[in-house]
């Protein structure tokens, strides 16, 4: 007798006791869904952290002079003391395919004062046209409007606004040491107030148009401190940095004092967390399928026990034991296939739903920061491609392993004894 009938008998057996099949398959399918969705949620958590940690302010890629960090030295402008052609520089950075957009920035440290109340802060000069394509800080505007290029207007954080008691329309004095050694000072009108809910930013940051800040800091138009860029796939940022460095050398020469770095370099703790999350998924997989094995094993033992008289008959008729074993295995594999189908059918819509329209769970917990990134209280999911496959494989593996014992026992049935009822 050839093997094939064994397999057909196997999977057909699933149909014999639909309820049992259904219960077991649902157990496996739910296990699959659980693992896959939880992996998706974990991936979403990481993505959220990276997205917010880099997307609100810093950008996924930054270009600085080699001397600029960690002190944020006012004089260490990109391209050295003579500065650069900012437009060419920004264009060169944006020319790299992985980079979606780039924008120039100037930084100064100074005081924001209404006379009686003074707050020390970071003054950031941005290009109001290009900045929104790279960071979201300008979208966190709460009151008033964004500052206009060419005007002495400033956007301040909500906490800073509280401390100096200033709102849209009020005038403040900005005082900051300037690039020529003097004390830069000028009047700025508060055009608006922003609120990121990150206290560091809301208390100590003030944003002005880049030209206005350069004037305050006695820096010519060619001297900037940073070019920030958006890279849509954050995990491609390292490659993008390499490409940007190459582009800069090509366009602006070898000895340009400018270096591009990806967020993975200046926020290594986020990379750590991502790696940790990934490894935790294995733990999850083991636990869930460990449990599932029991369900499958039980089912198969039951069903093979039920069918022992059939098997005995087949053996008596000359079937090889391996056929019998094969039949049990076939049943297991078919069960796995069925479960996988059900699992995928259930998991995919959930993943798609939570990926495109993540539900809000702010009733459970407010936002908080993790590794410096603000986490929104939503169920965000990133497609766990590798997990989808891996879990499927685990499912088959589980089913197969569960089938081993029943298969062996079935193959070893003593035909005569069984048939005679013992």
């Amino acid at each position: 007798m050839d093997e094939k009938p064994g397999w057909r008998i196997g999977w057909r057996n699933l149909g014999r006791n639909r309820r049992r099949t259904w219960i077991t398959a649902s157990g496996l399918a739910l296990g699959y869904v659980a693992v896959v969705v939880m992996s998706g949620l974990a991936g979403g958590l990481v993505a959220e952290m990276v997205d917010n940690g880099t997307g609100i302010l810093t950008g996924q890629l930054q270009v600085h002079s080699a001397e600029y960090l960690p002190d944020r030295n006012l004089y260490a402008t990109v391209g050295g003391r003579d500065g650069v052609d900012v437009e060419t520089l920004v264009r060169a950075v944006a020319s790299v395919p992985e980079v979606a957009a780039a924008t120039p920035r100037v930084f100064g440290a100074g005081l924001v004062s209404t006379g009686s109340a003074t707050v020390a802060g970071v003054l950031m000069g941005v290009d109001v046209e290009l900045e929104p394509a790279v960071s979201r800080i300008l979208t966190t505007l709460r009151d008033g409007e964004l500052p206009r290029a060419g005007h002495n207007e400033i956007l301040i954080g909500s906490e800073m606004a509280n401390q100096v008691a200033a709102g849209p329309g009020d005038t403040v004095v900005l005082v900051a040491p300037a690039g020529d050694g003097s004390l830069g000072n000028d009047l700025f009108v508060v055009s608006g107030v922003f609120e990121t809910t990150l206290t560091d930013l809301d208390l100590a940051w003030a944003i002005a148009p880049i030209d206005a800040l350069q004037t305050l800091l006695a820096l010519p138009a060619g001297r900037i401190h940073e070019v920030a860029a958006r890279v849509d796939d954050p995990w491609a940022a390292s490659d993008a940095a390499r490409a940007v460095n190459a582009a800069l050398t090509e366009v602006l020469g070898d000895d340009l004092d400018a270096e591009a770095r990806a967020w993975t370099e200046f926020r290594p703790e986020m990379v750590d967390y991502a790696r940790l999350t990934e490894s935790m998924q294995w733990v999850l997989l083991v636990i869930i399928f460990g449990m599932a094995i029991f369900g499958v094993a039980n089912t198969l033992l039951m069903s093979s026990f039920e069918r022992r008289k059939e098997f005995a008959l087949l053996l008596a008729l000359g079937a090889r034991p391996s056929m019998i074993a094969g039949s049990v295995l076939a049943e297991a594999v078919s069960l796995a296939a069925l479960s996988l189908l059900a699992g995928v059918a259930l998991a995919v819509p959930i993943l798609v739903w939570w990926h495109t329209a993540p539900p809000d769970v702010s009733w459970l917990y407010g936002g908080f920061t993790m590794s410096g990134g603000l986490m929104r209280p939503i169920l965000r999911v990133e497609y766990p491609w590798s997990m989808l496959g891996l879990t499927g494989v685990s499912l088959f593996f589980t089913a197969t392993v569960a089938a081993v014992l029943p298969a062996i026992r079935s193959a070893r049935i003593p035909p005569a004894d069984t048939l005679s009822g013992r």
Partner: protein
Amino acid sequence: MKLPLCSVTANRIAFRSGLLGSAGLALVFLTAPTLAPAARGQAVDRPPPDATPSEIVDYVDRLMRGESSTGEVLMEVLTENWGREMRMTVSSLGTEYALVRILEPKKDAGTATLKSGTEIWNYLPKVDRTIKIPASLMSASWMGSHFTNDDLVKESRLVEDYDITIEYDGSRDGVDVWEFVLIPRPEAPVVWGSIRYQVRKDDLMPVWARYHDEDGSLMRTLTFGDFRTFGDRLVPATMRMVPEDDPGEYTEVRYENLEFDVDLAPDDFSLRQLRARN
């Protein structure tokens, strides 16, 4: 644990750029235009010939102090990134009051700093505004110069903080000098490991001061010169500070005018005075 990170971050950033020049300004000229802070009481009389090293150094240290003073100063700073020259008027009353006003360069003329008690105010003529500086925002370097807060704010005198001995007593380049070694007292709030001071024997004028860290490495040198009589005192009208690590950089302070024990009262150090144009 999130510290009140905001204030720390902002402070350190503000600090890093040598901010608070203004606050520093006031603190500098806390009393008289010496780079040592106001002392209580008058200048000391010239010490007798058998004076101890401490007495000699004390005299030199308090050379430029008085109950009140007023003067005009020229300050020149050269750093890696820029060079600047400023002319200022300075007045002080004890340790409580000080007023500094910039005369030149023209674009900064009228900028003034007032210290009154524990409050520090800045007047900015360009925007015609007065702002109060919280003294918690302190800077180590004022106006980007090479003088630190330590040089300026301290209420104590050298003799209080240091044990003073003579290291060399003899001739240098044909001039009879003493070279003193100042070792900080164990609990004195000073950062230096030691200070070496060269003083001329005949007129007790300081020639130079060298500041070392605790390992003995020279950190910076202060040179005195242009000895002139203001009123009835002989003082070094010029002082130049050069950091050891960046020898191309320096800060030089030159007194063009100096009067001691003038007729000043707390009223002369008011906010209104801060905004006055002269």
